């Protein structure tokens, strides 16, 4: 497999082991069926150092490459862990790498204590931009609204990606800053809370990163890690379903012995395995990819994850019969999470269109000389 050398620590195995013991039973059920968020759980993960994994050592982190976050997000998806995950694991790692003159104390606090960061980004979708909201940075004044921001009502710091007219800028805004309006909303994602965030001429003086690149990199890595999370969701849905098919009996035998059922299970497995391999391949190529290549491979991974994971979850619901439709069965939670993530940073159609547009526009010489059977790419 592509991700782990024998001598690199298996962070994902540790994540799996911890969540198996500490995130289960009534605690997990209560979180997933109502609260979606628990400061105690977030503080536990902070204590374990999970938010510091990819933060550079110079900033007090463990210094893992960003690609090592992928297998961790697979496990977070498998266990259906509540957030903020992308926000507290990815954003500090990217912000601390961006060469910002002084790392914001709130970023360090998020890593150390688990207080949420929120990512306020209208780029979550292009196709629904009119409904989702927009942000404009004019000089140092930030204006606009984003209608769905994860965990914003619990956050102390907002990481804002705003349109500057010539590109995008990333700025850090305290949630208590005058002119910031945060309104909590109901959530249909079992692992996430949502809020509407509005800026009314808010003074945004902490702008980080070279203009367009940081915003693009945030979006690319968000796509890759959401794809990994969806891969974990698909894996667990297959595991649950295969176990159930061996136990549940009808007509005097396990339903897994019926060919109509078996074939759906085989498709689920193939789809889940294909998605997992795509994520591993994307991770293997991501660390050394240019910003443009990263954008393409991230869009590709997320496009496929959006489609494949949702289909696997739908098959899991179907094969669990009536139980699959209830909230007593975990498969319904996984399905709702997959549906929530499907459109987050692009569903399959939006991303396919983006990818296709880029390819049709591209100079054809870019395709030449790419060797498929290259020994470097086989591991």
């Amino acid at each position: 497999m592509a991700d782990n050398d024998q001598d690199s620590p298996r962070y994902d195995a540790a994540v799996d082991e911890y969540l198996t013991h500490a995130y289960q039973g009534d605690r997990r059920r209560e979180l997933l069926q109502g609260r979606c968020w628990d400061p105690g759980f977030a503080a536990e993960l902070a204590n374990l150092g999970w938010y510091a994994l990819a933060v550079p050592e110079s900033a007090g982190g463990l210094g893992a490459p960003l690609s090592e976050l992928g297998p961790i997000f697979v496990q977070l998806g498998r266990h259906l862990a509540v957030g903020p995950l992308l926000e507290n694991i990815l954003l500090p790692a990217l912000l601390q790498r961006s060469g910002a003159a002084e790392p914001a104390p709130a970023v360090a606090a998020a890593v150390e204590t688990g207080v949420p960061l929120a990512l306020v980004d209208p780029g979550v979708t292009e196709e629904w931009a009119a409904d989702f909201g927009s942000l404009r940075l004019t000089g140092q004044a930030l204006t606009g609204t984003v209608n769905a921001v994860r965990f914003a009502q619990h956050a102390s710091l907002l990481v804002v990606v705003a349109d500057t007219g010539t590109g995008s800028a990333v700025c850090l805004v305290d949630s208590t800053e005058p002119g910031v309006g945060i309104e909590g909303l109901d959530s249909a994602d079992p692992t996430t809370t949502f809020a509407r965030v509005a800026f009314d001429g808010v003074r945004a003086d902490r702008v980080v990163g070279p203009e367009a690149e940081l915003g693009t990199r945030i979006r690319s890595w968000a796509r890759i890690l959401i794809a990994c999370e969806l891969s974990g969701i698909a894996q667990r849905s297959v595991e649950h379903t295969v176990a159930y098919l061996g136990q549940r009996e009808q007509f005097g035998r396990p339903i897994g012995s019926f060919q109509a059922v078996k074939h759906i299970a085989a498709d689920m497995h193939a789809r889940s395995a294909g998605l997992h391999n795509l994520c591993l391949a994307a991770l293997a190529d991501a660390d050394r990819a240019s910003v443009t290549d990263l954008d393409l491979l991230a869009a590709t991974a997320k496009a496929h994850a959006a489609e494949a994971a949702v289909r696997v979850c739908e098959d899991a619901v179907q094969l669990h019969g009536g139980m699959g439709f209830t909230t007593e069965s975990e498969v319904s939670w996984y399905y709702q999470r997959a549906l929530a993530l499907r459109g987050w940073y692009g569903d399959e159609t939006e991303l396919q269109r983006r990818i296709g547009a880029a390819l049709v526009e591209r100079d054809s010489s870019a395709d030449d000389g790419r060797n498929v059977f290259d020994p470097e790419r086989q591991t």
Partner: protein
Amino acid sequence: MTGTKQKTQKTQPAQVESLDEFRARARAWLAKAEPPEVPLDLDARFAVLRQWQKTLFEAGWVGIAWSKQAGGQGLTHLHQLVFVEELVRARAPQPIGLIGLEVVGPSIDRYGSDWQRGELLPRLLSGDDIWCQGFSEPNAGSDLASLRTRAVVDGDDFVVSGQKVWTSWAHKAQWCALLVRTDTSVRKQAGISYLLVDMTSPGVTTRPIEQMTGDREFCEVFFDEVRVPRRNLLGGLNDGWSIATYTLGSERAGATLRRRVECEVALEDALTQLRRHRANGASGSAEADRHAQVAIGRCHVALRVLDAQTRQTTARLLADAGPTPVDSVDKLLLNEIEQIVFAEIAGLLGPLRAVPGSRPRGLRADRWVREHLYSRAASIYGGTSQIQRNIIAERLLGLPRG
């Protein structure tokens, strides 16, 4: 391909030409070789592709991963794959005798007698002998083991009677690798033998079948008391099933990888045609552009999935891991992806797909219709998608047999 390569890899790793050198040598040779145009007419096509195999053979590009004892080049499977890739990228055809090179030859190399190897393999490699594979029958498709073509021992010969179907190039082949029933008293898999049959033997007749792509290389083959010398038995009497399943399995990984490159190059060709059309100033509506973008994006995503999936296939092939049920996952994904790619491209032809000479959006209707139709065979040949799903469910997921 099988056994002999292991030996080659283990005993002479230091002497094997590096892949980069090999690729450069292949590319340089192909640039000068002037690969042939492939005619549509069947007889002409056969003649051209057979000559192409001879040209490749004489230049040392056939049997790349075969052992030197068997007449090959003694290189690795990865060298073979690199050459396949360079052939496809040069838009050059594959040699005509793929069934012999990928399936029958390795079986003879692994299970054959000295006489069989010495007599048959050199002409198989050079393209002087073209082989066909007589496995499927009208009533033995997915349930191959129920085949009924009989062979009865009579003195020094087997006497063979029965019918085969879907036998590619049977009407042009010199030899046939034939599965026959030699024992009806045992479990169906245990009574099958593998015979090497001279197609010029009295009692063999062939009848081509036209496919929906317009091709006619498929045949029915009839055997009417055909006498086959006993020395043409491959392996032991009633060993045919294990020989056939082993070689069909090892063929699968190589075939998946070859088809994958063909699909990638097809998408590149479609993109080139679309770009050229735009560069010539042709413009469609925003809706038409959007349709094309989504279609191309979907193909790209599908092919990246296949790329990711086959990185591990290549590793397994290099390790000579032999057939595994994971090959069925590859095959299932390949079928689906191949059908997505060609359906999406052909979908951009719209109503003009029915007019072969047309060029909607710059796309050549005749080519993409043909490729689209051919892709429908992907989920049927080499084990249907339904058979692959059974294998995945029972052998990988451990679900009970029905």
